């Protein structure tokens, strides 16, 4: 791959197919990435982006199809193989060891050593070269700083430097090559690099991405932000249902077309036909929404990072939807309203006597005591009398299992043994038992099966009809449009004014959230 810089495409994928059991995830993907370009990979959740990237990085192998790297057959059997070939990825979530220094993080796993002792000078020069590639001259990141002391944006740059070091871009050999040809070899995959960054930091990051591109790297940018794609990508490819739906120059393509390619015409119409009728009927019954009966008045609410500002009014009997990309601050907004985090500015006026309850998106981590029984989870409450008789707790649990038709062997069964949908119902049972006026519902259908999804959404509508106020956060746009009365879009931390759900289409929501 020494003289691959001259080849038109450094990475070529042809006819890649992959199935997990009977589910076919990739159905013949063709993709080529050129040296010195940023190639954006777009697609909704479940479109097959992650699987494709896993195959590219050797974490998964394709069932059919072939890959070529710099003109030679490329079939990595492990991420290690991929790294040695110069194909590396910076994952979406941060993976630095925050207690260690920048230098230690960059050479982690690559430490040059003599009989087990790290050769410090050599390690430093590798880290220096890798960080230099990313930050350029006049870099602001010190090699001996602790990773935890850096800003999120700088940590991101260190992650990229580490990936490049692992791909061999900072080796002596390629250093010589760079000196001779000014070229850095390899493929760098950036997975949602700006989802946790503010506007300025994102812009700074892209300046560096442009520099890496100019140095000859082939960069695959996996993202949801159409704005970033238009501003920074040379080409884009849209995946949907495991197929390439469109590819081209993002600057010659209207964003509406890209969104259509992502959502899919016929799929969307189906969704509207099914969801629309159901949504319309439940909304008709849900006319109990009383404009004068305000439960929540949120004014200029902001957290320390996200959200930046959010204002809205929630009425009794309505479902207010919040749409936004991952990292836009949706969960943080709900936590601020629930009083779990301290707001940095703005205020929440809760006019609901019975308070505000939150359904956490993190069922295992925050929502439930997985090792304890269903009954204990349902009845866990601040309120209640001094005595808590086990018999009565079990009876109470049994009653809720019955009411919400939770599939369980007994109220004494551990919550962790239930399916995702049934765990979700246990969480909901707890909120209903507390009888809150306002329910903040975060991704209620994540990771649960289709039948349970419909049940959970019907329950949400039903609760609104019975006079609760509900704020629903969901990544499923069809879900928002069918279940909500009004929808507001959260874009890079700022909540826009809500509009009637009937006025939105999925396309418009996605366009608004990702622009």
């Amino acid at each position, binding site marked *: 791959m020494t003289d691959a810089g001259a080849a038109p495409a450094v990475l070529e994928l042809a006819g890649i197919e992959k199935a997990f059991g009977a589910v076919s995830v990739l159905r013949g993907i063709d993709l080529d990435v050129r040296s010195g370009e940023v190639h954006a990979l777009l697609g909704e959740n479940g479109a097959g982006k992650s699987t494709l990237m896993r195959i590219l990085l050797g974490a998964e192998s394709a069932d059919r199809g072939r890959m070529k790297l710099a003109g030679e057959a490329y079939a990595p059997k492990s991420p290690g193989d991929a790294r040695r070939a110069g194909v590396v990825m910076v994952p979406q979530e941060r993976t630095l060891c925050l207690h260690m220094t920048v230098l230690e993080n960059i050479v982690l796993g690559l430490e040059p050593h003599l009989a087990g002792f790290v050769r410090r000078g050599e390690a430093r020069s590798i880290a220096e070269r890798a960080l230099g590639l990313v930050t350029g001259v006049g870099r602001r990141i010190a090699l001996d700083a602790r990773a935890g002391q850096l800003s999120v944006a700088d940590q991101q740059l260190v992650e990229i430097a580490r990936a490049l070091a692992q791909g061999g871009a900072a080796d002596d050999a390629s250093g010589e090559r760079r000196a001779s040809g000014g070229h850095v070899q390899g493929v760098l995959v950036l997975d949602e690099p700006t989802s946790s960054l503010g506007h300025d930091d994102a812009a700074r990051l892209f300046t560096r991405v442009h520099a890496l591109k100019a140095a000859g790297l082939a960069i695959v940018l996996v993202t949801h932000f159409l704005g970033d794609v238009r501003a920074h990508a040379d080409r884009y490819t849209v995946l949907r249902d495991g197929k390439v739906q469109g590819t081209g120059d993002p600057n010659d393509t209207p964003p509406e077309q890209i969104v259509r390619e992502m959502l899919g015409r016929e799929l969307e119409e189906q969704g509207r036909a099914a969801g629309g009728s159901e949504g319309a009927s439940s909304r008709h019954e849900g006319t109990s929404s009383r404009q004068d009966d305000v439960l929540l008045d949120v004014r200029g609410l902001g957290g320390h990072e996200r959200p930046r500002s959010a204002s809205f009014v929630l009425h009794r009997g309505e479902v207010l939807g919040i749409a936004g990309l991952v990292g836009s601050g949706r969960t943080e907004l709900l936590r601020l309203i*629930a009083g*779990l985090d301290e707001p940095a500015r703005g205020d929440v006026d809760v006019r609901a006597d019975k308070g505000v309850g*939150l359904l*956490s998106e*993190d069922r295992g*981590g*925050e*929502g*439930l*005591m*997985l*090792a*304890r029984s269903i009954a*204990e*989870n349902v*009845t*866990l*409450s*601040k*309120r*209640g*009398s*001094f*005595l*808590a*008789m*086990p018999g009565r*707790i079990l009876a109470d649990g049994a009653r809720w299992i019955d009411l919400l038709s939770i599939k369980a*062997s*007994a109220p*004494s*069964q551990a919550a962790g*043994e239930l399916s995702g949908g049934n765990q979700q119902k246990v969480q909901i049972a*707890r909120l209903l038992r*507390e009888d809150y006026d306002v329910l903040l519902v975060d991704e209620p259908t994540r990771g649960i099966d289709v039948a349970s999804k419909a049940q959970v959404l019907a329950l949400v509508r039903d609760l609104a009809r019975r006079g609760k106020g509900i704020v629903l956060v969901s990544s499923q746009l069809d879900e928002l449009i069918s279940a909500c009365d009004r929808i507001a879009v959260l874009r890079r931390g700022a909540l826009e004014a809500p509009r009637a759900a009937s006025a939105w289409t999925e396309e418009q929501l996605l366009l608004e959230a990702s622009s």
Partner: protein
Amino acid sequence: MKLGAILPERRPAWLGPLVAVLVVYAVFAVLTPDTFLRTQNLLTMARQTVVVAICALGMTMVIVTGGIDLSTGSLVALTTVVVARLLKSGYSPGVAVLCALAVAAGVGALIGTLVGRFKMMPFVVTLGAMSILRGGAKGLADEQKIDCDTKGLEKLLSADLAAPGLWIALGLAVLVALLLGYTKFGRHVFAVGSNESAARLCGIDPARVKILVYTLSSLSFGIAGVMELSTLTVGDPTDSIGLELDVIAAVVIGGASLAGGEGSVVGAVLGALLMTVIKTGAVHEGMPSWTQEIATGAIIVMAVALDRARRSRQVGARR
């Protein structure tokens, strides 16, 4: 199928330790029937268990919240010193004991505040407290034992069935078992240990729960300190060094998990009893003391290993 419906879904946590106590007791009874089976021996073992068992009541609560308390031995020693000094200064036994218990509860409230409100690691806070309280006890006692007229306190653990100490320990065990198993507070203690975020989500203040737990547990160490004074009949600042390790062992043998969310008061008391039976049995058998130490250690590791094995089997059976 029918049998499965009748049997409880989970064996109670104290069943294992109960079987262990009975088996070990039976073994020693067979080996040395003439001495081991005497009522006097039973009474002696019960009296020797009292201090560890009372401490284990509080430690169980602490461990269920996911915490640990290393200052137990130091607090017990401090209590003996405080009571002895007050008695020597002429205060009545009632006043002396109440003051000492107030000191113990105050120490617990402070530890609980540091752990709960200031989110400090319980291990570190109580490691510090262990040293501070030990030093405080020595300072208060001028680095020597305090002889005093115990004015009746020595009868707390007298060698007969009527010894009030035995019944106080039993009564406290019942009380703490009820508190953990049958009250809202008990539920909250388990919830904080099982998933602190979930507890907070439900409006429970984990810091408040922890402050209460450490206060109550230190109070139990104080009560144990009074019992210790009753057997020592002097205030001894160097007493009970390493007691906390015996107490933690008893709680763990009793089925608690150091990760929090699990634990049994009955199990912990049985765990304390098991260690006494081993020690006493070994003495009766004329076994050297190092063998008791090995046996106790092996039982701790075995208890946890068996518990792990049982749990992975349960999970496996359900899948």
